[in-house]
């Protein structure tokens, strides 16, 4: 939940996206997108497929470039820098890594490394990037697995874990780096319906602990319950933005209503219209 | 008065007797008459024996050609020469495929027992060829303790080995697949001398007077070259006629002129050759364009044999594949054995097997056919495996449907399985074709005039091996590139990623 400073004023945003635009050839995938994410704020991004949600999220981790605008992570420009002529050029990889060092990402396809156990997956970056000593890395990794409820499966290979368990390991892996921001790219879309719940549970726990999260999702229920802000993206534009209450019940934009109605028809079919 | 025909069985026996008699009669007809009647003399040889018989610019050249032209004029006969791999030549003579073997061959007691030699036409004493300006080798014994070379399995190599056995120290004798390879290594400095008959050595030295030189006197036991015919009564007349002509040519100086032209010295056929200054017989200037043209012509052989290998191999592969997939355990085992053998043994060994085995069995086929057989048999194994993958990829339900419709096994195979397997495995077939074109380069080892063999000939006659082989490589690249391009364009299939080789 949103934190506030000691004097009650809102804290400066951790992430700022300012007028970001990205095109793939003729198609405008992101069209003048602007928003901010404050500490401990949980933002859910919803919208039809092809609306640019994933691209936006991936840009925030700089797994995608963006053509114009700025993405600031804790006040620092991500992915680019100004050269001495005042032009925007691509920043060096080390600089990019530095700016996004407090950003963690969880993918739709989990992307665990199949030749390593769950524990090894979680500990890998601790050992190679943070260069923690082995014992410390091991302990922290085990702690993270415990936090997502999988300490007992630390020595299992991903092939032996269910989809939900793999995704939880993936969350642990990102958490182990002690990020300030966690990005989730449709974290439950690849899961069998019965397994979705355990992952959402973990995510709710994170939100409760005060983690700043940006989540691209189709789980409207989760958005309604856990999000502080919901953003509706349509054709690369931020079509609507606000509290869950506002977006789901008050905003009257036709495209948003259409989108939500489609969702309702598919998922709550027993509700009589 | 009417002649009463004999009874039925008697008539048959009589007919048979007449026919057999006629055949025997025909064979009993002496060869000279037979040749005169045909109007031509058929000569068998291997055209890889400079300066007697070799191919330059696609045409036969050499001492033999010139000699037989003269012979033909004198005896009023056309001359037809057949080019065969050496192991097939003598069996071919015995089988009556031609009248005489040119060669020529060295006169040995063992051969005299089986065949009839003409009068000698050249001095074949074995001598050493050294590098020009190599001051370490001034006489034959100077090769002691060094490395020398000869052609594998040749009588000249035998003499060399016997000679070095009498020298002090260990002299290594390296045996090459043919003399040209040995000469190339001599020029490169890997060996200090090559042993071969004097005419050949002298010719090579005259071609490259600043690279090679002959070591005199020849170290071998005096021995002579002659042509060879069958040793039966029928052939006597022919050989006698040839001998008469040789005497005539010796008397009027034509023989000596030919010897001077090709061996750089007239060789008294019964004494030591005189030492004359060697002029270079025949020009050897050729444009690089002609080189490429030769290679492209040879490419036809390569492509042709690859196509045969693919087509014949495919037919055999269908049989092998169905054997492997059959319910009969022995069929499956046999099929598996075939595939395992032909994929486990190197193609070179398979080629040699077919090449040497067939004459053994009495089947004398030209080297091209022997190579084609070997290549087809080998390719069949690989194609069978690919087809098996294709067959297994056809949903089982289709076979069940065919069964229920009472389609015969053969019909099911030909109309349902093979067409679909073909489609499924088409990408692999393109890469198989590419592999086949490359593998076909090995047929050069058994003497087929493909791209590689032609490159070897060019390297031997132009003394520019790098250019020759690089050009050959280029031609192969073009062929393979075109095949891949064709695969992309016509079948729209990308190169299959899973099959690496």
């Amino acid at each position, binding site marked *: 939940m949103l934190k506030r400073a000691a004097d009650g004023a809102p804290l400066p945003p951790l992430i700022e996206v300012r007028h970001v635009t990205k095109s793939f050839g003729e198609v405008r995938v992101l069209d003048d997108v602007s928003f901010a994410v404050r500490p401990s704020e949980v933002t859910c991004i919803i919208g039809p497929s092809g609306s640019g949600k994933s691209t936006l999220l991936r840009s925030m981790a700089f*797994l995608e470039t963006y053509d114009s605008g700025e993405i600031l992570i804790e006040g620092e420009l991500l992915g680019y820098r100004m050269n001495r002529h005042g032009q925007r050029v691509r920043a060096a990889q080390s600089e990019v*890594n530095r700016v996004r060092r407090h*950003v*963690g*990402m969880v*993918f739709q396809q*989990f*992307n*665990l*490394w*199949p*030749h390593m156990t769950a524990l090894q997956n979680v500990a*890998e*970056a601790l050992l*190679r*990037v943070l260069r923690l000593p082995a014992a410390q890395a091991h302990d922290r990794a085990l702690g993270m697995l415990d936090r997502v409820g999988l300490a007992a499966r630390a020595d299992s*290979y*991903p*092939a*032996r*874990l269910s989809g939900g368990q*793999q995704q939880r390991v*993936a969350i642990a*892996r990102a958490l182990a*780096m002690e990020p300030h921001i966690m990005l989730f790219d449709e974290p439950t879309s690849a899961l069998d319906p019965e397994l979705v719940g355990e992952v959402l549970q973990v995510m709710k726990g994170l939100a409760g602990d005060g983690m700043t999260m940006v989540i691209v999702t189709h789980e409207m229920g989760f958005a309604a319950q856990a999000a502080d802000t919901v953003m509706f993206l349509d054709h690369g534009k931020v079509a609507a933005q606000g509290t869950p209450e506002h977006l789901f019940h008050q905003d009257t934009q036709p495209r948003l209503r259409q989108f939500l109605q489609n969702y309702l028809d598919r998922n709550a079919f027993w509700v009589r219209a | 008065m009417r002649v009463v025909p004999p009874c039925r069985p008697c008539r048959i026996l009589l007919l048979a007797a007449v026919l057999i008699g006629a055949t025997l009669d025909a064979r009993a007809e002496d060869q000279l008459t037979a040749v005169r009647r045909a109007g031509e003399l058929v000569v068998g040889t291997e055209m890889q024996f400079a300066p007697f018989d070799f191919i330059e610019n696609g045409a036969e050249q050499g001492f033999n050609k010139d000699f037989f032209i003269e012979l033909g004029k004198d005896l009023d006969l056309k001359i037809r020469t057949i080019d065969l791999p050496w192991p097939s030549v003598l069996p071919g003579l015995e089988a009556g495929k031609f009248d005489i073997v040119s060669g020529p061959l060295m006169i040995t007691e063992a051969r005299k027992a089986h065949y009839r030699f003409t009068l000698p036409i050249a001095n074949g004493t074995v001598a050493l060829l050294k590098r020009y300006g190599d001051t370490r080798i001034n006489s034959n014994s100077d090769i002691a303790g060094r490395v020398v070379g000869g052609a*594998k*399995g040749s009588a000249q190599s035998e003499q060399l080995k016997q000679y070095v056995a009498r020298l002090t120290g260990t002299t290594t004798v390296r*045996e*090459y697949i043919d003399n040209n*390879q040995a000469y190339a290594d001599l*020029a*490169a*400095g*890997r060996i200090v001398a090559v042993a071969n008959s004097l005419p050949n050595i002298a010719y090579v030295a005259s071609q490259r007077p600043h690279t090679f030189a002959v070591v005199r006197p020849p170290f071998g036991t005096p021995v002579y070259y002659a042509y060879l015919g069958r040793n039966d009564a029928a052939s006597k007349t022919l050989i006698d006629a040839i001998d008469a002509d040789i005497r005539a040519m010796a008397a009027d100086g034509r023989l000596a002129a030919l010897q001077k032209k090709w061996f750089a010295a007239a060789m008294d056929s019964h004494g030591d050759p005189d030492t004359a200054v060697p002029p270079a017989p025949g020009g050897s200037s050729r444009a690089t364009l002609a080189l490429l043209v030769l290679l492209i012509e040879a490419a036809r052989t390569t492509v042709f044999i690859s196509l045969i290998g693919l087509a014949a191999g495919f037919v055999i592969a269908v049989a092998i594949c169905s054997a492997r997939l059959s319910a009969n355990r022995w069929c499956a085992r046999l099929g598996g054995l075939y595939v*395992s053998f032909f*994929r*486990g043994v*190197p193609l*070179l*060994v398979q080629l040699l*097997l077919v090449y*040497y*085995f067939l004459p*053994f*069995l*009495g089947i004398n086929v030209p080297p091209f056919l022997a190579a084609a057989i070997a290549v087809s048999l080998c390719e069949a194994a690989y194609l069978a495996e690919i087809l098996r993958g294709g067959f297994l990829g056809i949903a089982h339900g289709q076979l069940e449907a065919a069964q229920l419709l009472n389609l015969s096994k053969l019909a099911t195979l030909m109309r349902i399985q093979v067409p679909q397997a073909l489609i499924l495995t088409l990408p692999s077939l393109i890469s198989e074709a590419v592999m086949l074109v490359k593998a076909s*380069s*090995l047929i050069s080892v058994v003497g087929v005039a493909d791209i590689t063999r032609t490159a070897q000939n060019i390297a031997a006659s132009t003394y*520019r*091996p*790098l250019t020759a*082989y690089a050009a050959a*490589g280029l031609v*192969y*690249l073009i062929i*393979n590139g075109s095949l891949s391009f064709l695969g992309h364009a016509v079948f729209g299939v990308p190169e299959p*990623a*899973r099959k*690496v*080789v």
Partner: protein
Amino acid sequence: MNIRFDASILVDAMPALERGAAITLGVWLAGVALGVGLGLAIALIRLLCGRWVRTLLRAYVELFRGTPFLVQLFILYYGGPSFGLALPPLVAGIVSLGLYGGAYFAEAFRSGFESIPQGQIEAAQALRLSRLQIIMRIEFPQMMVIVLPALTNLVIVLCKETAVLSVVTVPELTFVLTGIGTEKFAFVETLLTLCVCYWLLVEAASRTGLAIEQRMSRFLGKGGC
């Protein structure tokens, strides 16, 4: 024409056969080592370096895969002296085998690298692992297991190609046995022995490869995709 089989020739030829077999094994293993090393180096460099280097390496691979091994061998052995490189037959044979194999191994490794899902690499990038770390810790271990069948196949191919070295007088099995065959007119015995020898070598390599594959596959499952 009757075919006789005189086993005594083989018995007499045993020492020569053993020497030939030793050379075949030596050349084969050396060629494989050289080829794998070269192939791996090429695959890694292609992952790390820029466009020009990649194009150059691609040209090398296409060249050596598009031309026959025999022609390559001739260029190295007979063409070598033209640019000052007169290698003895054994060295030329091993180098040629290594260069030829290297091109094929490079393609196998490249294919292996490509079959690793991009997502795993992105996850590693998001966790800020360096390019080298990603290659060494994530891609390489998986790739080596994926390419095992192709590697076994290539090792077998190289075994059979050692026979071609006989053409440039390397005293391996084919050279030795065909020499005895021509000398003693014993084609049947020697050629059949030759077949059996290669067959054994290839079977051994095939079984070994399969055993290694089975051991390694325990680790690699379908998780994470």
